[in-house]
């Protein structure tokens, strides 16, 4: 009897030791993974800042790009072009994505069509952006006979749609059914309940999804190489001509130019686009927090 007891106690101790060891190891590994991830991000940010900040100046942000050798060259045309292309993408992509998300969350629950749409959205979410660029190139640039800013917007819109659509569905699903029921119980139609009450209740989440999608696509390069391409001029021909933009500027200056000044300008543009995306991300966090922590 005592023998057995002693045996089982030491077995229990061994088990406990093993569990503690496993706990230590998992903690160590996950902490290490975290450090690697954060260090990587910090390194990138540091590099971009260190190399980009020296070229930042008033004229850099207000003058347009110029061929090498002409003084006072800036990146303002690319900043404006990026804003145009991104805004255009938002205008093209957000309405169908919101409506699609509303359909999945509200009207199409449990239907076959909703299942198909959800599957297609996931496929689109995983689509390489270069393929989307090529698609728009074949669909729009070739038949219309030229690169244009609006073609760039279309490519980015296609990339935004799955992101906005699935966050819209998710956010609407977070709205409790009792709110849905109480709107209907007052005699609201389904459409009105959805648009006036449920979307309002989920609005900060919807806005967050939109901002994150905009942030995601505003740094995309590959689709723009096939569509908006590049121009040294101001972005006046959004609908008909090549349109300057930051991602392609960075690619061109950093990889296709032999000149040190243009390499430096590429870093400056990289810093600019990083700050823009960072601001979008921070903005979306503030909006989401306001709703979910302080009523």
């Amino acid at each position: 009897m005592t023998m057995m007891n002693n045996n089982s106690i030491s077995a229990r101790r061994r088990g406990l030791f093993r569990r503690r060891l496993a706990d230590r190891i998992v903690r160590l590994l996950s902490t290490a993974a975290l450090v690697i991830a954060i260090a990587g991000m910090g390194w990138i940010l540091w590099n971009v800042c260190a190399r980009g900040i020296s070229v930042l100046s008033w004229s850099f942000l207000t003058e347009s790009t110029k061929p090498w050798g002409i003084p006072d060259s800036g990146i303002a045309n690319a900043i404006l072009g990026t804003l145009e292309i991104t805004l255009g993408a938002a205008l093209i992509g957000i309405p169908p994505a919101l409506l699609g998300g509303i359909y999945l969350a509200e009207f199409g629950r449990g239907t076959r069509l909703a299942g198909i749409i959800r599957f297609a959205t996931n496929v689109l979410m995983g689509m390489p952006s270069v393929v989307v660029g090529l698609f728009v190139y074949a669909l729009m640039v070739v038949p219309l006979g030229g690169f244009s800013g609006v073609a760039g917007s279309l490519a980015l819109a296609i990339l935004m749609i799955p992101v906005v659509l699935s966050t819209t569905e998710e956010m609407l699903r977070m709205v409790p059914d009792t709110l849905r029921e109480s709107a209907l119980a007052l005699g609201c139609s389904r459409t009105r309940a959805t648009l006036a009450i449920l979307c309002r209740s989920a609005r900060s989440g919807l806005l967050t999804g939109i901002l994150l999608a905009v942030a995601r696509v505003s740094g995309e390069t590959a689709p723009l190489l096939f569509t908006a391409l590049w121009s040294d001029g101001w972005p006046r021909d959004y609908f008909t001509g090549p349109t300057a933009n930051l991602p392609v500027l960075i690619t061109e200056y950093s990889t296709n130019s032999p000149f040190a000044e243009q390499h430096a300008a590429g870093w400056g543009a990289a810093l600019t686009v990083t700050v823009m995306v960072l601001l979008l991300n921070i903005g979306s966090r503030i909006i989401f927090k306001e709703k979910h922590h302080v009523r």
Partner: protein
Amino acid sequence: MSDEIKISVRNLNFFYAGNHQALFDNNLEIRANHVTAVIGPSGCGKSTHLRTYNRIFELYRGQRAEGEILVDGENILSPHVDVLELRRRIGMIFQKPTPFPMSVFDNVAYPLRLHFKLSKSEIADRVEDALRGVSLWDEVSGKLKTSGLALSGGQQQRLCIARAVTAAPEVLLMDEPTSAIDPVATLKIEDLILQLREKFTIVIVTHNMQQAARISDYTAFFYQGRIVEYGRTEAIFTNPSNPKTEEYITGRFG
């Protein structure tokens, strides 16, 4: 008070998705301007029964009701009934208060703007009347523009009652309206229900048997989807005719 029948339920059967039957041959006569309590153990079909009166179950795929529910003699389960108008006539209060994400004023004004064409001053008057009607006016008159979500739980529930009342319904369905609310706020809502009886026909689902005894005129006892006993509340609580009813109200199960 009249003893006219407002709602007459005849052979009501209810099915959840997958043909899972939840209500069996329910027959019930709800009297106008009285409070009818629906009691019974969890899962007995009380809420399911209530949710057929305004057809709110239709929100969910695969749920269906068979039989007849006559409101003023008209079968509201018929597909020809305008369900939006039905829901204006038959209001509902839920277990958890559900203020809309808008101001206190806009919450109460919502059904007015939805169903009636009124001037701004008429809307303001009716909102005030409704808030006074639920004794909320003195508490919120200074903060009509703040969010309805900022009120306390008991205030939110009275706000929801005020909102239901502005749609000018004939019947108010209440699905455990006090179970998520503290005892003091509960008493206020019970007082309110007794006042509302003057104007509306009230059907209330409750888990709380003291509450049913305090505020209802008639009580229906549900068990496993069937109406076991229905009658005047005093009779049900003092002299139940079915042994199952007696077991339940004396707390032997539930």
